[in-house]
C-alpha cells in the first residue's frame, strides 16, 4: 500500500532529522579537534530537560526554549574550557575518554538536579494530527523538519559566507597552515564546541514533545547520531545529514516491512559494509596516511 510506504517515510525522515542534528554536532567537533565527542547525546538531554524545567517555573514557552538552547551552547563551551582545552596535547584517545567522563558527569548532575523521571514538553502547536493521502503527520514532526532545514541552511551560510565559519573550515583541513594564516585556532575550537552544544540542545528541544526526555535520553541518541555521522563520512556536513536521514528511513522501513527485531542491527551491518567497501563513508574525503 502506497500510503503505508509514505507513512513509514514520514516517520523515518522525522527520526532521521534528529539523528542528523546530532550527527552534525559530531562532525563539527570532529573537524575542529579530531575528537569523537561521546557527550554529544547529552547535549540533547540538556536541551530537553532544561526546557522542561524552565517552563515549569512559568517562563513563556518560546523564551524558555531559547534559554534552553543557549544553555546547551554554554554547556558546550564549559565542556571545552573544563575538559578539552586543559588536555589539548593529550592525544586523541585520552580526549575521547574525557568526553566519556563528561557524558557520565552530565548525566550524574542531571539526575541529581532534575531527578530520574520522564518528562514531556508540550507540542509547539497542538497535537491534532494532520492527514493527507492516508498519511498521518503530527504537527510537531513538521516543526522538527522545518527547524532542521533552517539550521542546515544557517550552517551552510555560516561556513561559506562568514569569516569565522571559513576559519573553522580552514582549520579542519590543516590546523598548522590555518595557524600560520593567523587564525586563532583556540577560538575556532571554542566556537565549534559551542555550536555542537547549541545543535544538540535544539535537537533536544524539538524532539522532547515526541519522544519525551529524561536524564539518560542522550545515550541512544548519541549512539545513533554517531552511526549517522560515520555512515555519511565523519567530518562531512552533507554526509551527516544524509547519514541521519538514511538511518531514520532504514529503521522505519525495516520496522514497517520486515521485522523490528533486528532493526537496530541493520544500521550497524550497513556501517560495516560501507566501511569495508567505502572506508571513508558515503561522502567522506579519502585520506592519505602520513608517514
Amino acid at each position, binding site marked *: *500500500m502506497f500510503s*503505508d510506504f509514505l*507513512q*513509514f517515510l514520514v*516517520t523515518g525522515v*522525522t*527520526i532521521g532529522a*534528529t539523528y542528523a542534528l546530532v550527527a552534525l554536532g559530531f562532525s563539527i567537533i570532529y573537524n575542529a579537534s579530531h575528537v569523537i565527542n561521546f557527550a554529544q547525546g547529552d547535549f540533547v538531554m540538556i536541551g530537553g530537560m532544561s526546557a522542561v524545567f524552565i517552563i515549569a517555573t512559568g517562563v513563556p514557552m518560546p523564551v524558555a526554549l531559547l534559554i534552553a538552547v543557549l544553555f546547551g551552547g554554554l554547556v558546550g563551551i564549559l565542556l571545552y574550557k573544563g575538559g578539552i582545552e586543559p588536555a589539548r596535547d593529550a592525544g586523541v584517545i585520552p580526549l575521547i575518554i574525557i568526553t566519556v567522563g563528561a557524558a557520565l558527569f552530565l548525566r550524574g548532575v542531571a*539526575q541529581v538536579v532534575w531527578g*530520574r*523521571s*520522564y518528562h*514531556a514538553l508540550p507540542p509547539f502547536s497542538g*497535537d491534532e*494530527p494532520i*492527514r493527507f493521502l492516508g498519511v*498521518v503527520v*503530527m504537527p510537531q514532526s513538521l516543526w522538527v523538519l522545518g527547524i532542521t532545514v533552517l539550521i542546515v541552511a544557517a550552517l551552510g551560510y555560516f561556513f561559506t559566507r562568514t569569516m569565522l565559519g571559513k576559519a573553522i573550515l580552514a582549520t579542519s583541513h590543516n590546523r598548522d597552515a590555518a595557524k600560520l594564516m593567523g587564525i586563532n585556532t583556540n577560538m575556532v575550537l571554542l566556537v565549534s564546541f559551542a555550536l555542537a552544544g547549541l545543535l544538540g540542545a535544539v535537537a533536544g528541544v524539538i*524532539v522532547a514533545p*515526541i*519522544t*519525551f526526555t*529524561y536524564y*539518560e535520553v542522550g*545515550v*541512544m541518541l548519541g549512539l545513533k547520531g554517531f552511526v549517522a555521522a560515520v555512515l555519511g563520512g565523519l567530518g562531512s556536513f552533507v554526509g551527516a545529514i544524509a547519514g541521519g536521514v538514511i538511518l531514520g528511513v532504514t529503521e*522505519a*522501513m525495516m*520496522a*514497517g516491512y520486515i*521485522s*523490528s*527485531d533486528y*532493526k*537496530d542491527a541493520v544500521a550497524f551491518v550497513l556501517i560495516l559494509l560501507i566501511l569495508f567497501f567505502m572506508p571513508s563513508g558515503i561522502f567522506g574525503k579519502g585520506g592519505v596516511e602520513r608517514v
Partner: protein
Amino acid sequence: MESATHVIDLVTIEKRLWEEIVMLKKTLLAAVCSVAAFGLGVSQVAADEPIRIGSFLSASGPASFLGDPQRKTLRLYVDRINEEGGVLGRPLEFTYYDDHGASDQARTFARRLIARDRSHIIIGGSTTGATMAAVELIERLEVPFISLAGAVVVVEPVKKWVFKTPETDRMAAEQVFADMQRRGISRIGLISGTGGFGASGRQQSHAVAADYGIEIIEDETYAPDDTDMTPQLTRIRANPEVEAILNFDFGQAPAIVTRNYAALGIDRPLYQSHGVASESYLELAGAAAEGVRLPVSPILVADLLPDDDPQKAPTMAFRETYREAYGETPSAFAGYAYDALMLAVDAIERAGTTDPHAVRDALEQTTDFQGVTGTFNMSPEDHMGLDIETSFRMVEVRNGTWRLIEQD
C-alpha cells in the same frame, strides 16, 4: 530471647566458617589463609542488635522508575517502624545499593549485602534480570530474599530462599485476555518491547492466549529506546481482522505507543499491561490514553474501591503516608517494596528471631497477609502467594484518570 538469637546466629556463622575453612585447606596457602579466615570469624562474632535489611535496587538507569519509588518506600517505612520501636525490640538497619539496572552489579551488591553487611533479609532486584543474577548466590549462601521483579521465572520453579511480591506478567496477560473475552474479542495484535519486561510479557501472552480463546495474529516488537512506533502500528492497523491491540512493556515506550496509536486514528481498543500502572503514564500519554484498558494494582485505584473491600484500608493508608513524605502518589512498584518489607517484618516477628532458616520458614507459612498489592498466601509450592482477583483490577482511562471497569 536475645541470647538465644545469638546462639543460633553463631551456629550458622560457624557452619559457614567451617565450610570456608574446609575449602581453605584444599589450597596451597591453607595455613596462611586460615589466619585470614579467623580474622573473618572474629569480625562476624561481633554481630549486634539491629535487624539488618539489605537491598539492591535499580534506583538509577533505565529501570529507575521501578527502583526509585522502591528506595523511597523502604527508607520511609524503615524509619517509621524504628520510630514505633522496631521489630522484636530491635531497630531496623537499612542498607541499600543502586545496581543501575546492571545485573552483574546486582550480583556483586547481593554478595556485599550478605558477606559484608551481613543482612538478615534481602529485599530487592527491581528487574527480573537483576533478581535472577543474584538468585544463585542467595540460594547458596542461604539468606531469605524477597524480589520485587515481575516475571514468572523468579518463583517458577520454586527456589527455597526466593520469594516475590509483584503479580506475575502471566497474571496480567490472563486478566487482559479475560476482559477481551468478556467483550467478545478473539483476534488481536500484540506489540511489545524487546527489553526484559516486554520480552517476558510477550512470551507469557503467547502461552496463555489460547486459554481465553484469543489468537495473536499480529506480533510486533520495538527496541526499548525507540522513539516512534508508527511503522509497527501501521502494520497492525493494516490487518483488518485485528480486533484489539495489546501493548506489553514498561517505561516511556508504552506512552509513545499510545500517542502513535491515537495519532494513527486506530479504532480498535488498546490494552496496556500493569507495567504502565503509574501516574507518569497518564501524564506522558495525555489525551491519547483515553479509553485504554489495563490491569492495575489496587493502590492506583484505592479511593475507588468500595469501603467493604479488605484492601481499601491498607492501600489508602499507604498512599497517604507516601504522599505526605514525597508529595506524589505512589506507583504500584512502590507498593511491591512496601509489601516486601511488611512481609519480612511479619515473618521475623512470627519467627521471633533473625535466624535465616526460621525466617524463611515463617515467610513460606504466610497466610492471609493483607498487603497493598493483594492478599498473600504463601506455600512451599507458591512463593508469591497472590491470587488474581485481589491483586489485579481492570481499569479504563477516562478523563485523564483511572476508572474501575464494573465486572458483571
